[in-house]
């Protein structure tokens, strides 16, 4: 109520647009905004055009989509678990994906195999947690959380084992995957579809989410059908996460922090919060990725390092200002 959606989305769209332009213009090959305009309008055919269209654009799109997926998944997970510390990885999806990805790297399989193995591992983990959390009928939040955390710990051990037995030459690739890396990203067609579908769904169930955030008993007494909504949330958040890790590995921090950044600005209505999180998370990861490939060029860094390096001070600053957490707001 206190935040007007229109200026907010205008601002966030501007941020996303600027991040995209910056990303397309930055790199080892100097590209001025004027060159960029020519390339984007399609009348520039040279090497610069090729670099922007075939290298930078797919990677920028992948970064934005991954950031959007993770932020949306994080926002949904926080409502599902009613826990502000929840992030997309808390229930073990990323552990399953990492196990799949590391196995395929260990076997020397790359490209599509790597993506397929990561997605398969994530699905396996989602299914495992879903079934085990069911137990004998009761699918409570604490049971889900405990099951997910334990499964995640189990994956952690498997990942350590794979790292320990892998030959040294594979380790670097594996570590990059574990830290989140967009170096091998391609144009995220499937990812964009998943993100759009997730966003539409999140918007449609926004009001029930607002109510679920007040507790299950309250929500149920106000006519929300809790169990189907919880299952839907779990499956949606997990699939969004699985898609994100398949594109870019375990990019940390974005999914945890982006929803909170918006909540700290006084945005609590999930019909506004979740689409805003997609824009902000996408922009944040896009900026982080641009930095990761330019900061120490020609050396490339895993983007996960940069998300935390940008995100930590930004989040602490917002938290320090303390709006929305304490007392009254303007």
């Amino acid at each position, binding site marked *: 109520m*206190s935040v007007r959606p229109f200026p907010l989305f205008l601002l966030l769209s501007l941020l996303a647009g600027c991040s995209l332009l910056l990303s397309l213009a930055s790199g080892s090959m100097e590209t001025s905004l004027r060159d960029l305009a020519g390339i984007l309008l399609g009348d520039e055919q040279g090497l610069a055009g090729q670099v922007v269209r075939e290298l930078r654009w797919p990677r920028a799109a992948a970064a934005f989509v991954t950031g959007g997926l993770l932020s949306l998944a994080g926002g949904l997970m926080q409502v599902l678990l009613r826990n502000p510390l929840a992030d997309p990885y808390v229930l073990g999806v990323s552990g399953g994906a990492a196990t799949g990805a590391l196995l395929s790297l260990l076997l020397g399989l790359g490209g599509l195999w790597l993506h397929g193995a990561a997605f398969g591992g994530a699905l396996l983990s989602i299914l495992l947690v879903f079934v085990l959390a069911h137990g004998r009928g009761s699918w409570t939040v604490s049971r889900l959380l405990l099951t997910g955390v334990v499964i995640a710990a189990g994956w952690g051990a498997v990942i350590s084992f794979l790292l320990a037995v892998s030959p040294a030459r594979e380790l670097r690739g594996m570590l990059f995957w574990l830290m989140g890396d967009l170096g091998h990203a391609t144009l995220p067609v499937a990812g964009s579809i998943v993100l759009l579908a997730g966003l539409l769904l999140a918007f449609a169930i926004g009001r*029930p989410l607002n109510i679920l955030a007040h507790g299950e008993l309250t929500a149920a007494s106000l006519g929300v059908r809790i169990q189907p909504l919880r299952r839907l949330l779990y499956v949606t958040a997990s699939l969004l996460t699985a898609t994100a890790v398949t594109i870019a590995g375990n990019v940390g921090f974005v999914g945890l922090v982006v929803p909170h950044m918006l909540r700290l600005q006084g945005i609590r209505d999930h019909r506004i919060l979740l689409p805003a999180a997609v824009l902000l998370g996408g922009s944040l990861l896009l900026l982080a990725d641009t930095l990761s490939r330019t900061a120490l060029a020609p050396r490339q860094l895993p983007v996960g390092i940069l998300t935390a390096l940008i995100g930590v001070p930004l989040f602490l600053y917002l938290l320090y200002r303390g709006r929305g957490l304490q007392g009254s707001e303007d």
Partner: protein
Amino acid sequence: MAGLQTDTLRVRIADVPVCDGLDLQVHPGESWCILGRNGTGKTTLLHTLAGLREPDGGTILLNDRPLQQLSRRHIARQAGLLPQDHRDSLPASVLETVLIGRHPFLGPLQWESRDDISTARLALQSVGLQDLEQRNVATLSGGERRRLGIATLLTQDPALMLLDEPTNHLDLHHQVQVLELLQRQVRNNGKSAIMVMHDINLAARYCNRFLLLLGEGRTASGSAAEVLTHELLERLYSHPLEAVTGPYGTVWLPGRSAGLPGQ
């Protein structure tokens, strides 16, 4: 009949019966109070009546229709619950919280209208929280949060109000204010209320029907004259009570626990 009706209702917690064969008729204009010791299942019974839990036997009729056959949304338009106690873990403002009461009346993609907002503001005013509209609920005191819960229920505006200890955390002044507010709703707007209470004296002043959960499935129900008797109340709490007559009628004072040396 309009209102709530139970027919040989059986509710159990694990294997312990809360009520066994309970026949209850809650008419518009009636305020029921459920009294009982800790752990006798007052909250469980209230949740069963709200349709949040399946009964272990018998039927519950809400406006003549079996509760089990009604959708959650349909029930929420006619019956509202004030939960016993809860804390929000994600931030929300006071106004946003009160507005959730309109949920059962809004379509899937519909946003809260101006009318909904003014209903919510009116409800905040009636519990004296109108100046805290933009405050984060996490910063409210226990009593303020309780009044916020009452305001949310008023925004939902159900014909049947189910209240789990509505005076929890409230100071003396606000206890009376909230109970008077509920009494007005029941008397003037043709609603009915079922509330769980621990204070026999406040209950006797503001409710006109009583349900005593005596343990092991035994119950007693009726008007104050019928069930708020010395014998039944002492049996209810397994505690000696003293009746004192004051300006508002009979007041019950707890006696000293048996076995303690007197002074």
